[in-house]
């Protein structure tokens, strides 16, 4: 029973609905899909009880009609648990985790700017990474957003 399976068993023991949602492609990596409404208590359990004390990053994905977010958590810096939640694009609201990890503030602002997620409980603050005068409603990392290619540097009339 490798370490990854023990973690899997412990999570299934506490949260029955997680049965079968696990995927362990290689050692020290666990992928887990969690329904969005039960996410906070699974997250709270893993961080508080199972001592996943390091948040690598939150990756945002645009999957057609819903946005999904993957929280990469590390157990004493070696085993990575990737919790994935999906939220419909119509109301893409997720709860902030700056309570557990203050550094998640920048990661969540990035999700808000680039993917158009609505993070509840995130403190009002400067936009990251887009400039202040970036048009509202344009979310560059969405699949339907096409960058307007810059005009080719016009060849000056060579003398």
């Amino acid at each position, binding site marked *: 029973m490798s370490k990854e399976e023990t973690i899997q068993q412990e999570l299934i023991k506490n949260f029955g609905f997680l049965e079968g949602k696990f995927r362990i492609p290689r050692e020290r990596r666990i992928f887990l899909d969690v329904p969005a409404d039960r996410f906070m208590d699974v997250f709270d359990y893993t961080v508080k009880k199972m001592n996943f004390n390091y948040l690598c990053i939150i990756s945002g994905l645009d999957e057609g009609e819903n946005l999904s977010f993957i929280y990469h958590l590390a157990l004493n810096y070696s085993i990575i648990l990737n919790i994935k939640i999906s939220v419909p694009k119509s109301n893409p609201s997720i709860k902030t985790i700056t309570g557990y990890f203050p550094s998640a503030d920048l990661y969540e602002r990035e999700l808000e700017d680039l993917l158009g997620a609505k993070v509840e409980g995130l403190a009002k603050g400067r936009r990251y990474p887009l400039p202040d005068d970036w048009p509202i409603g344009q979310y560059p990392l969405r699949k339907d957003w096409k960058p307007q290619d810059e005009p080719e*540097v016009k*060849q*000056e009339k*060579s*003398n």
Partner: protein
Amino acid sequence: MIKPGKMFAEVMNNVFRKPATELYPFVKTEKPDKFRGKLEFYSEKCIGCKLCMKDCPSNAITINKIGEKKFEAIIDLDKCVYCAQCVDTCPKKALAATKEFELAQLVHSKLRVTLNANIEVKKTTEGQA
């Protein structure tokens, strides 16, 4: 233990040693042998498969057909990032990287270089790998 002016000895015996810096434009440093500079094109080997155009990260190279089994390569020296991926991808080894790196131009249009067909094979190109 604490010693003020720790680098005193090092600094003193460096005063009379030859300085480590060189005056670049007058003193040329020799390039390592695997250096990836301006590209060289052997048109007789080229079969026009355009694989290099697909793999170029900054689409700096375009291959044109200018006759029966004759091709020319047009390279934007300012777009090219000199990664020599095209040299590796080319199935027929028709491209090679030279050691030339001083390619600055005053006029922008001079940066589009056409390596046309009639370059005869000067030196044998030992493989890049």
